[in-house]
């Protein structure tokens, strides 16, 4: 059964990816950034290689659209490349990318929602649903979908990208107390959704 524990954050799911290498990669990044600022294509390629997966995953978990996630990750990398000259090498590269990714993801959701409202009389976006389905499966994703976009964003920043509340506040331009409130609310809703899913499966005889 998928269940958030008393500490609030454990789930019964297989672990497929180890994600602990991010911090150790940051040590030689100033040299890569310096090389990119001098026009080194391999250096910018290496920075993109290092940060792509996290950026893409974060975008996807927030917008839940594979093509939008690719576009957002790409735009973030290219925006960073465009402004690389002005980047302060003493600072880590990741948060810069992640701030762009999260802000663009939220922007995309807002404009997408507006477009959907404009097309309200029309049929549902079947194409969108189909490419949601091929990657989105499982209770956790459904539970994530039940969150509002900003709640998803803080969950992704905290639990996928490993930022603390104070750092999230800086990235999203919120007060730390607001971030903590949103995190608490989002975790409570995840717990509730996952509990309901598990109960439903149990009642239908499909629970493990």
């Amino acid at each position, binding site marked *: 059964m998928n269940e958030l524990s008393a500490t609030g954050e454990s789930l019964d*799911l297989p672990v497929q990816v180890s994600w602990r290498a991010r911090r150790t990669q940051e040590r030689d990044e100033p040299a890569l950034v310096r090389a990119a600022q001098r*026009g080194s294509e391999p250096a*910018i390629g290496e920075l993109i*290689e290092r940060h792509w997966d996290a950026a893409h995953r974060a975008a996807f978990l927030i917008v839940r659209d594979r093509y939008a*996630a690719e576009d957002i990750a790409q735009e973030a990398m290219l925006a960073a490349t465009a402004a690389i000259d*002005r980047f302060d090498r003493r600072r880590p590269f990741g948060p810069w990318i992640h701030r762009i990714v999260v802000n663009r993801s939220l922007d995309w959701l807002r404009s997408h929602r507006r477009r959907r409202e404009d097309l309200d009389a029309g049929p549902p976006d079947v194409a969108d649903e189909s490419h949601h389905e091929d*990657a989105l499966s*499982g209770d956790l994703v459904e539970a994530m979908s039940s969150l509002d976009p900003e709640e998803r964003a803080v969950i992704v920043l905290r639990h996928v990208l490993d930022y603390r509340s104070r750092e999230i506040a800086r990235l999203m331009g919120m007060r730390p107390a607001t971030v903590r409130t949103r995190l608490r609310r989002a975790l409570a809703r995840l717990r509730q959704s996952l509990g309901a899913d598990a109960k439903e499966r149990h009642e239908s005889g499909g629970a493990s």
Partner: protein
Amino acid sequence: MTATLNEALRALAVPDGDAAKERTKLLAGEMLEARRSVVAAPRSRRALAAAVVTAGGIAAFTIAPPGQAVAEWVGERLGLTETHYIELPPGVECADYTLDESGEVAFKEVECETELLREPVRER
């Protein structure tokens, strides 16, 4: 096996973005390459400056051959399609350009490098 929420979210299957990643690397490399070779060409030192702005900004200024439109000249030389014209404030003769994250052009006054003004195209 019990995993943390962190691990569960990180283990969720997401669509493969490798093709987009490779495209992005190529585009970023092209941006840096273009930035090395891009020139901006004012019609005169004090007049309207035209800058070919790729996402990487402008490396240097030079002067278009007389009688030829700056944009055409720069575009021909560099094979670029997007040209932006930027009016420099009075008294500013040379500037570097960058694009911020939202795509807005920003400029910073720099000292004119006279040798750049003599060369039709110069990379740096």
